């Protein structure tokens, strides 16, 4: 099996065996979304109005909270060191780990989003846009988040610092994602927003693994 696939398979097997990560991200997503009606009030019209924003912010936070799982465990038990010596360029290893992270976090959030959209009484036109933007946007969350995870590797309790570093960089993804759903809901043309979101993710694919690899390399020295 190609080493790239082997790294993904390894991470997926670990995630399945350890089980908790995906489950925790989903529960956090559900919980955060449930807080909003309790805070804003159950009035359907208001909920429908804020639904796209709430769903995206909650999904974004859920994805961010599971980022330290990306490198931390492997860093602490020496696996990351062995991975860098596997003959596969570090950027490739990081990209493989990001894909595994997306499959165990971004994808489940994507599948849960429509269910939660019902909770928030989101209008029907928005569902397609919600799924499309989440499909395109959540990989960008894993890619950009990987840089933060790599930078805070050597930091004890780096979780809070990770969120401070990563959340500002998530803002464009959030804005384009939500604006696409809003456009769809109001029957406007959502294409430009979706295309911008896709541009972000496509740009992130080569750049973020490279930056994360640089950050990982220096914390391994």
């Amino acid at each position, binding site marked *: 099996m190609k080493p790239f696939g082997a790294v993904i398979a*390894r991470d997926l097997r670990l995630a399945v065996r350890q089980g908790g990560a995906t489950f925790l991200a989903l529960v956090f997503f559900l919980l955060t979304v449930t807080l909003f009606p309790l805070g804003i009030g159950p009035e359907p019209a208001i909920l429908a109005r804020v639904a796209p924003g709430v769903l995206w912010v909650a999904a974004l936070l859920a994805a961010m909270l599971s980022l330290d799982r990306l490198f931390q465990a492997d860093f602490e038990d020496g696996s990351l060191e062995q991975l860098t010596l596997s003959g596969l360029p570090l950027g490739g290893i990081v990209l493989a780990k990001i894909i595994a992270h997306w499959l165990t976090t971004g994808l489940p959030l994507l599948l849960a989003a429509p269910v939660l959209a019902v909770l928030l009484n989101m209008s029907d036109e928005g569902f397609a846009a919600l799924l499309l933007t989440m499909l395109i946007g959540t990989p960008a969350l894993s890619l950009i988040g990987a840089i933060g995870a790599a930078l805070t590797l050597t930091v004890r309790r780096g979780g809070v610092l990770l969120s401070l570093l990563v959340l500002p960089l998530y803002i464009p993804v959030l804005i384009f994602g939500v604006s696409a759903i809003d456009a769809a809901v109001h029957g406007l043309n959502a294409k430009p927003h979706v295309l911008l979101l896709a541009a972000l993710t496509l740009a992130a694919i080569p750049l973020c693994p490279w930056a994360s690899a640089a950050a990982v390399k220096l914390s391994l020295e």
Partner: protein
Amino acid sequence: MFQGRDIACERGERRIFSGLDFEISPGQALVLRGPNGCGKTSLLRIAATLLKSAAGNLLWDGADVAEAPEEHRARLHFIGHQDAVKGALTVRENIATWSNIRRSAEDRVDAAMAAFGIAHLADTPAQYLSAGQHRRTALARLVASRAALWLLDEPTVSLDADGTACLQRAIMDHRAEKGMVMAATHIELGLDDVEFLQLKPQ
């Protein structure tokens, strides 16, 4: 042939060692000697391209390693202080995943486990193993991978007498197949015709 010419190493602003040369020809073993903190681990990490040397360069059959680091990494196996063994995976999986990632042959996994006496634990999740058994799993990867150069940093840590014997046998077999070994260790590994490299504290 693996050579190091005029290698220097710096940690923070302090110079650990400089002007260091070494040479390992196929089938040979080089043991690093010196007090703690004299740079044995650093030299091994430089040889493994995990650490950039402050000066000097590494040569493999005369070619500078820096030109093709990925190739160099594919032909070495580094055993550090940490075992990189995942508790959730079984012993076999812990060894096999690394041979997949390093493209080495699958069949050597069983031979590797047998060489370190952990074949009976093949399907036990690693979290139930002792530290010594974790260490044997990590060392078993040496046999499972086709690495020509073994870089061992205190390999016998948490190994019992029997484990150390397994390691000696594995090193002997490796050297018989023209493999090379560079190790930092205090315990007498009881290997014949070994070169020594004395590292002086700065």
